[in-house]
């Protein structure tokens, strides 16, 4: 542990990783609670997988056309928002089945990402770090981007908290009270999309959903008040991220899988403890 504390002081990489983890944890707890209660976990998962398409495309185009601004983070945000928009539009405005479009976006994003990365010129891309996550690859600009995105998410939730809750609980009634249910549902999907970008940074595409859903699911076993659930989930995510980083640093294990494993075990225990309602 003292080694880890020393590393925080001396190694900027660890400091960045810890900072990004802490800041993004704030959003995971809050957004995860919405995702769990509104039951849109699979939409979040589809968005996470579509992010690879954005990462791949940004790497490809930035190298081919030498666009320095087109970082993987930018590509990820664009892809996540696009997929959230498409899924929302399809489920609100067309008669197509929602799970079908979720599956399509999910696979399309992965396929596009893999192809872009395959054809991208220059040095080989470390695919694994995107799929399984590698928070130790966090750069200073990543930390800044994380802080900005997290601030956007938390501000939006803070401003529209009651409307988002109302739309999650009873869309029809919200509409009758003059709230545009469609708008706030799309807003929720957009907020979820941005969170997934942050999550993919920490835990990778495959493991990201667990880190969004498990803290909120665990927390909802212990409280029946939305904001309390959010606070507990936020605390759990914080402990998982910071603790996971420390332990994986000490034991030299990959961070993402370790965090997810701990989160799953805690969720399982909470289920055994408080599951029978």
């Amino acid at each position, binding site marked *: 542990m003292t080694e880890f504390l020393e590393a925080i002081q001396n190694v900027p990489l660890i400091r960045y990783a810890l900072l990004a983890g802490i800041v993004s944890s704030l959003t995971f707890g809050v957004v995860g609670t919405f995702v769990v209660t509104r039951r849109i976990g699979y939409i979040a998962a589809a968005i996470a997988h579509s992010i690879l398409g954005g990462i791949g495309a940004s790497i490809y185009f930035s190298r081919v056309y030498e666009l320095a601004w087109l970082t993987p983070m930018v590509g990820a945000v664009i892809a996540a928002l696009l997929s959230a928009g498409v899924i929302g539009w399809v489920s609100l405005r067309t008669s197509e089945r929602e799970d079908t479009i979720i599956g399509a976006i999910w696979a399309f994003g992965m396929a596009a990402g893999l192809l872009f990365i395959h054809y991208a010129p220059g040095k080989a891309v470390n695919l694994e770090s995107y799929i399984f996550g590698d928070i130790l690859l966090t750069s200073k600009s990543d930390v800044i981007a994380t802080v900005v995105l997290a601030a956007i998410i938390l501000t939006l939730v803070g401003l529209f908290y009651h409307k988002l809750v109302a739309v999650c609980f009873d869309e029809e009634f919200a509409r*009758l009270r*003059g709230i545009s249910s469609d708008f706030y549902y799309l807003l929720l999907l957009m907020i979820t999309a941005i969170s997934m970008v942050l999550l993919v940074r920490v835990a990778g595409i495959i493991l990201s959903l667990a880190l969004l859903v498990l803290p909120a699911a665990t927390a909802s076993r212990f409280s029946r008040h939305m904001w309390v659930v959010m606070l507990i989930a936020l605390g759990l995510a914080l402990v998982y991220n910071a603790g996971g980083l420390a332990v994986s640093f000490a034991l030299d294990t990959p961070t993402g899988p370790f965090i997810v494993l701990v989160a799953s075990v805690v969720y399982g225990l909470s289920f055994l403890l408080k599951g029978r309602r």
Partner: protein
Amino acid sequence: MSTPDNELAEKRIVVQCDDLCFRYGKPWVLEEVSFEVTEGESLCVIGPNGGGKSTLLKILLGLLDPGRGSLRIFGESCEKARSRIGYVPQSMQFDRMFPISALDIVLMGRLDRLRVGRFSRECRAVAMESLDEVGLADIAQRPFSDLSGGQRQRVMIARALACEPELLLLDEPTANVDLSVEEQFLETLVELRKKMTILVVTHDLDIVSLIGDSVLCVNHRVHRHSLPLSGDTIKEIYSGRRRLEHDRRTRHVQGDHSACQHD
């Protein structure tokens, strides 16, 4: 000297429905529906499942556009009149696991007064009053999942009251409510009836006899009955059972209301 016309003018018309027709696909679900509700009246809407009750309710709420005919509430279009309507859906349709307190649900009735951030103190006061009105002030902070079926339904009513409505629309309020808690629930309705215009879709004869001024029988077309219904009529319509399955017994085909006794 007051003529009948003058009397009519004194009582404001809340709902004015003329020749309304509606269809989802090809066949008409509602045809030539005309009725009116005057201020202070409580109208019970009954009829078989699939007869168009829910559709009529959705049109009243402005959630569906009528194909033909006109429907004005407070002289306005349904969509414009929404802010003056309190709507009570069936409480069963909600996710019981949803982490939310009774008070927070009731506060949703004030959503149109909220722009961003937190609810004002005034909104919270109105919400608490509404909970008090249905006798649930002491469980304001209790989570939704801990409430009984009757309490949940009353929370939904409190939410509608928090809209400070002039017209209250209820959709089968006693469906899925425990008989043991229903009495208290009906008392709440009886109190509310004195204060506002009520339109309630129901299968429950207790509600009809307790709060109904008249009955609108909806099955493709509508027919109006004045109350009290004679014993024979009730028997005819509900085959003598208290909590009725109106449908099976009086399956009116294409608006045939021969089983109903009309005024």
